[in-house]
């Protein structure tokens, strides 16, 4: 590969398995970029953490090693702490509300607009669904959480939420979780259904409780250094490809999740659809904690944006 080649090939890193929903959307994005830029740019996809896990891929965006990545909003929050507020529990209840929140919340659009200063530009948002629990015991209400250990990824908002529900939390990298559940180090984990299926957590924790406590989509981002080198025509082409891949991803995952839940049930997983009320009541303290850390004004603004969207959709 000579210099000319290297310039026209853009590197897309993601952590989903080949054939997974993110990988499918990445292929759609790659096709559209090539089509709309009339072949001036090709996107080469590197799946399955080949070029690094989520935090490393984002750092690579800043250092010029990777051109595109797609990752949960929380992964970007180490660079932009306010994004943690999107992980406040029960902000939205349906996909439509979640899409509206990510596409039209003035607060969130404002935060995304500040990210190019950090070397990262958000192009669109892909779907990953809502976070729910898989546990080794039946989790019907917060009362069942008492004395049980819940794995959390390193994120304050999620940890506060789990503690408010009544779990003891154990921070652990995702690669250790399967073994830790199998060996009893923790009694469960929480993730979107798509992730639960691809990482096989139901094999060791066969109770799926559909709390849908956090809406957790995946902003698609481009390195600001790469973006700066593109012509206006190519920027528009890539923006268009990003929007279309987002629509594809949202439809794909929304359609997929119900089929995935049916399949889990057929494979012997107990599906629990709990009364959300007690969970909602249990996590009320999380909003206060967020006010303490991030300031009351911004937290109330996010809550108000979310409430307006819940009312409208």
């Amino acid at each position, binding site marked *: 590969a000579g210099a000319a080649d290297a310039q026209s090939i853009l590197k897309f890193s993601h952590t989903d398995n080949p054939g997974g929903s993110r990988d499918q959307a990445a292929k759609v994005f790659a096709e559209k970029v090539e089509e709309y830029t009339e072949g001036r740019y090709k996107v080469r996809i590197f799946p399955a953490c080949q070029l690094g896990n989520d935090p490393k891929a984002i750092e690579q965006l800043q250092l010029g090693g990777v051109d595109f990545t797609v990752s949960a909003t929380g992964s970007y929050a*180490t660079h932009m702490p306010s994004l943690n507020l999107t992980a406040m529990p029960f902000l939205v209840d349906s996909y439509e509300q979640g899409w509206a929140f990510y596409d039209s919340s003035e607060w969130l659009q404002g935060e995304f607009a500040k990210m190019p200063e*950090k*070397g990262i530009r958000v192009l669109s948002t892909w779907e990953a669904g809502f976070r729910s629990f898989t546990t080794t015991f039946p989790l019907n209400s917060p009362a069942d959480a008492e004395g049980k250990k819940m794995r959390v990824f*390193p*994120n*304050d908002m999620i940890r506060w939420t789990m503690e408010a529900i009544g779990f*003891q*939390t154990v*921070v652990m990298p995702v690669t250790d979780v399967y073994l830790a559940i199998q060996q009893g180090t923790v009694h469960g984990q929480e993730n979107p259904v798509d992730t639960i299926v691809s990482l096989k957590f139901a094999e060791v924790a066969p109770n799926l409780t559909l709390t849908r406590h956090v809406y957790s989509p995946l902003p698609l981002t481009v390195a600001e250094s790469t973006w700066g080198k593109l012509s206006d025509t190519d920027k528009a082409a890539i923006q268009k490809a990003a929007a279309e891949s987002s629509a594809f991803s949202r439809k794909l995952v929304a359609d997929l999740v119900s089929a995935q839940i049916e399949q889990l049930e057929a494979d012997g997983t107990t599906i629990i659809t709990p009364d959300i009320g007690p969970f909602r009541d249990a996590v009320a303290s999380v909003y206060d904690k967020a006010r303490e850390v991030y300031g009351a004004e911004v937290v109330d603004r996010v809550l108000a944006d979310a409430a307006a969207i819940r009312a409208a959709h």
Partner: protein
Amino acid sequence: MDFRPFYPAGLRALSSAIDGLLALGGFSILILAFSNATLRGLAGFDLAWSLEVTAFLLLWTTFLGCAAAIARGAHMRVTEISATLLNAGARNILEHVINLVIALLILSLIWHGWSIAAHQWAQKTTVLYWPVGLLYAAMPVGMALSLIFHLFNMWLHFRGTDIAGDTQA
């Protein structure tokens, strides 16, 4: 091939200081991992920050350990082949060339490592909100210390100091 006995007092003090940090880091990792396991097992209580602190300690002990290994001449290498194929004079010249190339490589690691740490200074860890650059600075700092020892080792070799015990690999 321990170089430390040939070092002047200042360099030996630096080497001892690094050893001290390694021992301290090692104890901290040990105590942290042990108390986290004990607390969780007995009191049902997990230290949320322990993963972050151990990651910090692991990076720093690794790259400081890299410098300590250079002072000890302990990095793994294959010397059997050049020893069989080349005579003493040619091996000597080859050693100078290799040392020079390594010095350049370490310089490039310091330069770009510093840029990595600077780029990631604004990024904060998820529990303690430490700058991620503070973790990543372990690489350029460890490499800078490595370079100090490496340059002095080069000088010793250039002067023809007889360093006994040709250990290999």
